[in-house]
């Protein structure tokens, strides 16, 4: 594997989308207008091509040679050579796989957006702005993934946050979108604050920020200057980093921004909040496995947060009526799975789930967008139904995505999710149980959505000309559905993905001797041990789909009855456990009140003091004002009078 090639490809992956963004914006002056998707498609598509190229090269390299660190230039120099911060890239199996996922899905989303945004009849379309933001987002995400040290990682991290802010608030004159953007940004700030502190603590502890040195020192168990690591320092760092991951990946305390972020255009939802941005946290935890695995307590926290999030979000998704909102909570829930996977030392499985999830969730979001497109912007599932005749292709693609999400046997989601549950059971029975229950729920709410939307009697909102979307929209759906169906198969004969990722996340194994493969093999010998869980969870998924069919197609009266039977439960779930209200009461309102108090102090006490100070020049000014009437001849007269006095003094002296 040639370093130069890797280096060049990395640069191109970064620069092509950036160039696309710049061209789209700059050429706006030259009336590029309705064609501004082309530079971005080429930019992001080129990035995808080179990402595949990198993956190819990484696959072709020797197992021990698969990690390449290349320095572009020295970014910040703090004097000592050891503490230079380089602009450096780290290409290894993990980042190669992430890159492919990100750029591939992004390319499809950009292609999809070409038609979707064109028919967007919003008053301020900002066509080229949208594509420029998309390209900028891909650039940011690639920076994050390729980063070879924590500082660059942090830069990508923040850039991603910024882009998500811009894209969620794309319809900036829509108040709810502006509020959602603000919310996303602020909630992310909370996480990023912890993340930033974590990075500072890393630097304080180890005196350097690049992955290789830091992980090496952790393996050696030493801090900067060869001293012993302070007690609990690694746990502290891990917790702080986790804080950032929780914010970015929408885990339990800080997940609230993600469902609201559906205010952005649907391609944005698909791109940022399903496939790529929210996976940054998962990626980061996987990348920093050495730090996390060094403190088992934190790993437990990760697992518990993941499991709780998965269950919690799934329950909310059960009763939501907004198609995109169901998908949003499902995303939160699936991210919870990934964290669960990370927490049970199955980082490979987590990343694999990330990989498959990117395909089917993007597919689902885009299908939802297609439905929304056809329904003239209406997304409430109660308002339409039986659309499978009207939108035949969208229905087919969406069904494939739903099957993958529900974990239907031999679809991609089935393999990856099952692996995580498998590892969870290995770690702790209750974690496994939560995973299984959530899987059932997932299958249920997914098909609830499908049945409500596409089955039953045909209902179309008034005044909407429902029609199947064009080929620009259907093509990405088709490609993604292929991924959603078959992406899981790369793992099947002998956990290839896990082995591929091993060198990158070897810290998980190295720290504990818990070699992933060994752990799997330790309990997985024998047919039932190996496949029993698969069969059971596959069966459960089919069962849940059947229940959803019964409830929402056969006995349509039953869901309402259920809601009536347990009104409180339904209301709590429907209102998302009142989390937003709780935050409002616990955080926002007190803050606002204290702000008002501070404002009062500032206005009456501080300003009063300042005013007393200003009163003196005011008085002086009132006295001297007559000297400055603005009439130049008065000035002249004053000047000449002064001259006369001076002349007189000189002559008399």
């Amino acid at each position, binding site marked *: 594997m040639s370093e130069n090639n890797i280096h060049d490809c990395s640069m191109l992956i970064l620069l092509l989308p950036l160039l696309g963004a710049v061209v789209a914006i700059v050429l706006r002056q030259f*009336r590029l207008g309705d064609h501004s998707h082309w530079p971005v498609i080429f930019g992001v598509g080129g990035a995808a091509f080179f990402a595949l190229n990198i993956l190819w090269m990484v696959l072709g390299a020797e197992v021990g040679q698969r990690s390449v660190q290349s320095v572009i230039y020295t970014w910040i120099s703090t004097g000592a050579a050891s503490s230079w911060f380089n602009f450096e890239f780290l290409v290894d199996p993990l980042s190669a796989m992430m890159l492919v996922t990100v750029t591939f899905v992004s390319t499809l989303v950009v292609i999809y957006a070409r038609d979707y945004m064109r028919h967007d009849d919003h008053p301020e379309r900002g*066509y080229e702005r949208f594509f420029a933001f998309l390209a900028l987002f891909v650039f940011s995400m690639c920076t994050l993934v390729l980063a070879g040290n924590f500082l660059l990682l942090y830069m990508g991290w923040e850039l991603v946050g910024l882009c998500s802010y811009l894209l969620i608030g794309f319809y900036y004159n829509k108040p709810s979108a502006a509020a959602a953007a603000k919310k996303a940004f602020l909630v992310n700030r909370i996480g990023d604050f912890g993340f930033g502190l974590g990075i500072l603590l890393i630097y304080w502890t180890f005196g350097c920020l690049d992955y290789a040195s830091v992980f090496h020192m952790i393996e050696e168990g030493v801090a900067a200057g060869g001293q012993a690591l302070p007690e609990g320092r690694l746990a502290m760092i891990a917790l702080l980093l986790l804080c950032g991951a929780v914010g970015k990946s929408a885990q339990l305390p800080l997940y609230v921004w993600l469902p609201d972020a559906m205010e952005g255009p649907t391609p944005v939802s698909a791109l940022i909040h399903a496939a790529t941005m929210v996976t940054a946290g998962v990626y980061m935890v996987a990348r920093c496995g050495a730090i996390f695995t060094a403190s088992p307590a934190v790993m437990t926290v990760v697992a518990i947060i993941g499991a709780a999030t998965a269950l919690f979000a799934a329950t909310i998704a059960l009763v939501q009526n907004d198609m995109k909102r169901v998908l949003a909570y499902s995303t939160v829930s699936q991210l919870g799975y990934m964290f669960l996977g990370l927490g049970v030392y199955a980082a490979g499985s987590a990343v694999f789930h990330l990989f498959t999830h990117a395909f089917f969730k993007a597919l689902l979001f885009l299908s939802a967008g297609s439905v929304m497109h056809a329904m003239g912007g209406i997304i409430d599932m109660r308002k339409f139904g039986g659309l499978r005749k009207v939108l035949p292709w969208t229905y087919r693609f969406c069904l494939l995505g739903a099957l993958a999400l529900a974990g239907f046997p031999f679809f991609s989601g089935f393999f990856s999710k099952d692996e995580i549950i498998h590892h969870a059971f290995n770690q702790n029975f209750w974690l496994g149980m939560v995973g299984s229950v959530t899987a059932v729920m997932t299958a249920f709410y997914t098909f609830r959505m499908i049945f409500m939307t596409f089955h039953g009697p045909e209902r179309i909102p008034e005044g909407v000309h429902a029609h199947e979307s064009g080929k620009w929209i259907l093509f990405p759906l088709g490609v993604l559905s292929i991924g959603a169906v078959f992406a899981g198969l790369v793992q099947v004969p002998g956990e290839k993905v896990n082995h591929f990722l091993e060198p990158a996340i070897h810290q998980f194994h190295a720290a504990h001797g818990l070699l992933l493969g060994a752990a799997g093999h330790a309990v997985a010998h024998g047919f039932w041990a190996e496949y029993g869980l698969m069969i059971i969870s596959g069966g459960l998924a089919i069962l849940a789909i059947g229940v959803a069919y019964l409830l929402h197609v056969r006995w349509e009266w039953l869901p309402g009855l259920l809601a009536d039977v347990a009104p409180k439960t339904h209301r709590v779930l429907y209102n998302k456990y009142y989390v937003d209200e709780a935050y409002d009461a616990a955080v926002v309102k007190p803050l606002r009140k204290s702000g008002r108090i501070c404002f009062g102090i500032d206005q009456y006490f501080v300003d009063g003091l300042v005013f007393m100070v200003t009163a003196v020049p005011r008085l002086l000014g009132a006295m001297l004002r007559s000297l400055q009437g603005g009439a130049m001849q008065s000035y002249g007269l004053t000047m000449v009078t002064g001259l006369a006095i001076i002349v007189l003094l000189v002559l008399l002296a």
Partner: protein
Amino acid sequence: MLDLLKNQLLFSGLLIAVLMGAINLGVAYCTFYERKISAWIQNREGPNRVGFFGLFWGFHFWGYGQPMADGLKFLLKEEMIPDKADKPLYVMAPAISFIVSTIGIAVIPWGGYLDIDADGIVDVACQVANPDIGLLYVLGVGSLGVYGVVLGAWASNNKYSLFGGIRAAAQMLSYEIPLGLAILVVVLSCGEVRLENIVRAQIEGGGTWNVFVHPLAFFLLFVTQLAETNRAPFDMAESEQELVGGFHTEYGALKFALFFLSEYTHMIINSAFLCVLFLGGWHFPWIPGLGLEDTAWWAVLAKMAMLGTKIAGCVFVYMWIRWTLPRFRFDQLMRLAWKGLIPTGLGLVALAVVMTYFGIPGSESVWPKLIWGLGGNAAVLFMVVLVVGMSPAGVTGRQANMPPISLLSPAKRVPRADQGTAN
């Protein structure tokens, strides 16, 4: 009697008297010839009726009595001052105009030095005054010429007069610059500001008439003098088609006559300067008796006649141009001055400086001067034409609102409608 004349002061006084009479007479007949020449150019007779006091019945002297009759008419008409006019200035303006245009004769060398009693000793200069700033005096007096026009225009309290006055002021200020540049070329090539010496430099040694060395400067000076005298094609100040009568709309009788006189006086004096600066003054080669050393009274008279002939020729060209060329539009006139004449003048000054640096004006032979001068002039002309040809012609006034005339003329650029930020 002759001894008395040997005093330069008294001789100058005599000269003033003679010249004033001669120039006034000349002016009178200039107006006559103006009409004759215009008639000739327009293929008709012109004034041919008025004789002298009815002498010689039936014989009209080809109309030569006409100027006398005109003068008499001006004298006898009623003097009228408009009610709202600013009276002192209204009266003063024609006087200023006439005085300023007349006093220029003071420094013109009419005929070199005069040896009255033929004793071989030069007695007096045939020149009213010979200050060592002669040329600057010309410039100074010329620059005052605008006052008569401007004040008359303003004092008339008439809109058309004011337009004429403002045009005249702008025009005269603008054309004074190329005028000064053209004169500067002469100063540099002769190394003198004394008019007498400038004539001498064109005769003595390897000297030749400046017009042969600096033909472009001659042309420049001639054009600017046309403009300074407000003669066609530069008579914007009194363009009667637009402004009734320009700055003298409100004037009549003798005051108008003064403006009229001053215009023709200006013409004659300007021609005299043109001859002195470029055409060798009173000198003409190959004619005996017109040299520097000829100071006898008859030689001086011949020299004065020579200069008079040259002046008459120049005045004829003035009139010829007036009845041949159409008038400029005002913006064209300004553009000609600022974009055509001033750059040319600067180029010529640079040429003269270079020539001075290489010592060309002081050479004993004529040929280096001619070669350098003509070659340099050709180069300057070439460059000016090149630059002027490259600069796009400004489209002003009505032209801007007219549709393109043909496919060959550049189409007007259609302003792009603001398409907003729809895309």
